[in-house]
């Protein structure tokens, strides 16, 4: 096998180990499956029952935002996983082995895609039960799921960097909450961004979370009839804007995370 082949094999071995943990660690199972299920059902009935959207169903409008928010929060797992491995000394073991060193971080982010696929599947199932429907075709729907997963993958590289930067799992959780909560709420995830106060509206309009949500809604056919077309480029071209942001985030944070991984022993 050549170097790249080995790198993939190493990444696969690490990812496989992380996936085994879904069955062993109840916290992971809850975070990957139970919490997303709960969020879909809760949002659908609490908000979805009390807010009317003219020309459509708020419950359907809501689901794209719930998917986006849950998957982005799910990226915290990447950071938590790496911080945990560092705290427990597993990273030191990996670093003493003759493997492709970036494989540990790549394997981590790859296994988190699997976590996210599981979360998305359970959310989609729950969504269908509470009345969400895909009103487009299979290709559009798959593209919608794909964009959500891609954007979550990009965010998990930010979290990988954070996880390797900070000393403990608790710090990762707090740091991620401080960043992700405003990012997913000052957006069109739960309410249309048009009615927000101007500074927040501008932030929400250019927030990539809004774009990925908008893209998912369009691709699932969940934009209520009669909704005015978006006024800003980012939301008019939501798919492209999401792809751009995902590419930029990975291009910046993957090298940062890998560089950091190579140095974790040095500063501790």
């Amino acid at each position, binding site marked *: 096998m050549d170097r790249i082949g*080995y790198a993939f*094999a*190493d990444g696969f*071995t*690490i990812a*496989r*180990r992380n996936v*085994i*943990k879904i069955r*062993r*660690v109840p916290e992971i199972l809850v975070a990957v499956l139970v919490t997303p299920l709960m969020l879909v059902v809760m949002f659908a009935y609490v908000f979805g029952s009390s807010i009317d959207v003219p020309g459509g169903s708020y419950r359907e409008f809501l689901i794209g935002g719930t998917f986006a928010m849950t998957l982005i929060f799910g990226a915290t797992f990447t950071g938590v996983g790496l911080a945990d491995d*560092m*705290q*427990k*000394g*597993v990273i*030191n*073991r*990996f*670093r*003493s*082995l*003759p*493997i492709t060193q970036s494989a540990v971080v790549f394997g981590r982010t790859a296994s988190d895609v699997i976590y996210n696929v599981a979360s998305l599947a359970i959310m989609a199932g729950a969504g269908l039960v509470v009345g969400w429907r895909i009103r487009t075709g299979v290709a559009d729907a798959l593209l919608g799921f794909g964009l959500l997963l891609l954007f979550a993958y990009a965010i998990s590289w930010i979290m990988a960097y954070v996880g390797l930067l900070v000393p403990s799992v608790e710090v990762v959780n707090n740091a991620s909450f401080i960043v992700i909560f405003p990012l997913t709420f000052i957006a069109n995830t739960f309410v249309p961004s048009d009615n927000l106060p101007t500074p927040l509206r501008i932030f929400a309009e250019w927030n990539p979370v809004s774009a990925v949500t908008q893209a998912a809604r369009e691709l699932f056919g969940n934009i209520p009839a009669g909704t005015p077309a978006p006024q800003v480029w980012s939301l008019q071209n939501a798919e492209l804007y999401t792809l751009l942001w995902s590419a930029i985030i990975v291009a910046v944070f993957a090298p940062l995370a890998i560089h950091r991984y190579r140095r974790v*022993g*040095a*500063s*501790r």
Partner: protein
Amino acid sequence: MHPSTHPSAASAGPGGIEANGLVKRYGDVVALAGLDLVVPPGTVLGLLGPNGAGKTTAVSILTTLIAPDAGTAVVAGADVVADPRAVRARIGLSGQYAAVDEHLTGFENLDMIGRLYRLGRRRAAARGRELLERFSLTDAADRPVKTYSGGMRRRLDLAAALVAEPPVLVLDEPTTGLDPRSRNELWDVIRELVRRGSTLLLTTQYMEEAEQLADDIVVIDHGREIARGTADELKAMVGGERMEISLHTDADLDTARRVVARFCHGEPHIDGRTVAAPISGGAQTLTEALRALDSAGVGLLDVGLRRPTLDDVFLVLTGHVAEDDAAAASNAGPTPDRRSDESMEVAV
């Protein structure tokens, strides 16, 4: 101070370890201040020192986890800075901070490591089973490691270091925190490895462990070597054996001192009703001294022949007791000069 081979005098050869002038600083704190180490192939070097002495920093450099600020190190024929990958392929690391995954089973841990060493799927699995058998972990093979006892966990950790049958093994405080029985079991396992010809670098804060397992011992404190030699050579540095007698009454003190003086070197030391004196000739001399005391009518409460331990060596060399220092370090928390070792230990 250097009874055994000095690094400049010998090369470690392809299967050994040779480090020259290792320096590592963390900010203003000097973790290693120019450490030399030589472990000839097939031998065991014990690196002995209290917490914060620089043991973990030295191990981290030799296992390529961190780069030295100065100095060179060649492990199993490869330079740790220039060719870390080759070093990693030829060493096995086990110890307090390179851990196994507690959520995986014993088998899954070894299987994963075998795959990462690129043994291939089938050989990795076979090697895993074989090691579990050898370390008496077969019954626990398919249980998550978090259900293991401390001793089982350390055995698995050691097995993990052996997956690729590396010529050089680095064990960082392999028995810290274990109860005496588990410690003895692990010592047996390590002795067996040494019999099979492994080169071993072992760090420890336990004198007894170094004495039990190591051919040569390097004592370090504050990032530099303060002594090296075999256990016997180190003990000789603090002086030989001493006889100690305790008396029933003060009245006999003077007689006892005069009698003992005939058998010892120098003046006997008197502390309360105890007379202590350096002697040579061991039990023979002691017996003769006792006969003479008996004929002089001195009543004895207690008699002993005391040989110096490595603890005495450490006390003499550093001016403090190793294990007290370790306890103080864990009570005081991470003070700057202990940062390197201390933060590594959090990872246990």
